[in-house]
């Protein structure tokens, strides 16, 4: 008998049946089991400092370091940066830092700040590596720190947290076409699952239109770091900031196209966390202007 899969269309999006249609159509996934699963904590912290970049968009490394310290302490509730890191990782961990490599990449200053902070907290330098790249990278790690940059993406709507591990599949192109909603599965690869100890989004200078290549007209100084351990919750907050910025630019709703199905699917199909903004506890510290939330 011919196995006809229902095709997802714009109408599913309008009717709010994306989750069900995706779940029914994604091959080999027992979506009903995943549905409703949630991560442990859906706290998301946002730390901003208006001096994180100067007028020419040069990053102030000292300010970023302070923002990182504040993020770690506020997010974990620990008294020191060292205790904060040690509540997330072990000194024996092989820690991979995973920045966004292309198109509005993660600022090097942030990657350096994270590495220095880990070393100062007692993690041996030789245990820390840049783990962006092919499947061998995460296989060599016991813990991952995801460091995506905040950006819209022309193939997936949003190209921030859910997309950060796409190179780990060894075939990123397979997610460029109809399978972009399946990005959640990159977080469930056997050599990735359970290794992410912190998601720390570089929201210093985000890109709010999909590109596909950076257009400076759609970048702005948000000067923020966004952190959490629920990747879907962090992506949901990122999405809200991007959407609010787009509306502010045009003076009317400016939907992302394609819609960022990967975020909703990560929740409803893959059970990686929550995409319901009302279920996310957002804590904000520092500069309050144009928070976009």
């Amino acid at each position, binding site marked *: 008998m011919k196995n006809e899969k229902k095709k*997802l269309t714009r109408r599913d999006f309008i009717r709010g049946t994306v989750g069900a249609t995706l779940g029914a159509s994604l091959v080999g996934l027992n979506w009903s089991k995943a549905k409703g699963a949630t991560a442990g904590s859906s706290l998301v912290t946002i730390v901003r400092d208006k001096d994180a970049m100067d007028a*020419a968009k040069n990053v102030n490394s000292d300010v970023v370091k302070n923002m990182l310290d504040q993020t770690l302490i506020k997010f974990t509730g620990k008294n020191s940066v060292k205790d904060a890191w040690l509540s997330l990782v072990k000194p024996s961990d092989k820690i991979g830092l995973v920045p966004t490599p292309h198109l509005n990449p993660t600022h090097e200053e942030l990657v350096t700040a994270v590495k220095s902070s880990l070393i100062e907290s007692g993690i041996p330098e030789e245990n820390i590596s840049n783990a962006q790249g092919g499947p061998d990278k995460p296989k060599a790690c016991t813990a991952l720190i995801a460091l995506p940059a905040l950006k819209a993406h*022309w*193939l997936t709507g949003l190209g921030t947290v859910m997309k950060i591990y796409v190179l780990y599949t060894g075939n*990123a192109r397979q997610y460029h*076409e109809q399978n972009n909603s399946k990005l959640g599965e990159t977080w469930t690869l056997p050599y990735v699952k359970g290794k992410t100890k912190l998601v720390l989004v570089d929201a210093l200078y985000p890109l709010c239109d999909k*590109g*596909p290549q950076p257009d*400076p007209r759609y970048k702005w100084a948000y000067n923020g770091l966004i952190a959490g351990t629920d990747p879907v919750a962090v992506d949901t907050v990122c999405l809200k900031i991007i959407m609010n910025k787009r509306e502010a630019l045009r003076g009317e709703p400016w939907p992302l196209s394609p819609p960022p*199905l990967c975020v909703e699917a990560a929740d409803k199909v893959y059970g990686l966390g929550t995409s319901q903004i009302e279920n996310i506890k957002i804590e904000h510290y520092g500069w309050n202007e144009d928070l976009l939330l």
Partner: protein
Amino acid sequence: MRISSKAVSSVSIIIILILAILAGVILKMKTTAIRLPETLGPWTKPDSPQIVTSANIFDYMDGAGELYIGYRFNHLEVYEYTSDSQDDILVELYFMDTSDDAFGLLSLDWGGEPVALSSAQENSSTSSKAQFSRALYGEGLLRIWSDELYARVMAYRETPEAKEAVLTIGRAIAANQKNLPGPEIVEFLSPFIESEWRLRKDRTRFFRSYLVLNSIYYISPQNILDLDLSVDAVTAPYEKTTESGDRERIRFLLVKYIDPDSAQQALGHFHEAFLPEYKKGFSAASAIQEPLFFEVEDSWLGYRLHGSYLAIVFDCPDQESARKIIHHNISNIKEKEETIEK
């Protein structure tokens, strides 16, 4: 079974010949005599460009490569002007197979400040009906449609000096170009529908790929309209302001397939995926004589086939609006066909 060394030798020669021919085809790149300035104030051009083809475009730009191979892409030449005192200037020259494809890339965003890079551009227009900019500048980025060439020239940091350098490079790119007209299919869009609906010319996009369509107006993650490099497609919204001051927006899509059979087949695939509840008794051929309309969620959808053309309207507030928009735009195609016949 033993194969003689003579036979092996003959086969080897044939294989080498085939590979040589293939290599020749692959290496056959469009070349255009563009003379970029060697130096510009503190900036210096590299001696040779980085060459990017469809074979390595994903190495160069990750998933963004899907955009360019969604058009008829030949190759890309990349230059990075460097300076000791200023940030670099990136020059990307996208050599496309047709002017329509270069137009399509620029059409994806008509925002920015229009700039005339040559006296010919100042005097040229894409048609009597619709005039489109050929070069747009914004915050350090200059985008150019210059015949078969689409170019991006970007100062990593915008300064007055960098802006002048970017525009100077732009003028060099646009020099000696013929300023070819835009795609014919774009000409068929009526700017107004009975003074009620107004075309958003600034959101008129030309494309060939369903991925590009989805980035403009999301239809489906599958290619349910059979779009590929053989089609010409244009989409734009029509808007009207209601008596209460609200703005209503309709999405119009016009696709020209390679022949009428392909258009009919594509409509069949679209209908099956997008309108499954109207599957019973469906025949794509019935859309040749007159438009068909369907109530979906809180709006109306209509479509009509005309020869190789398929016209679809989405998000219509009522059936009559859908009918008017299809009628006016298909009439423009018929008018052109009658002119040619005469």
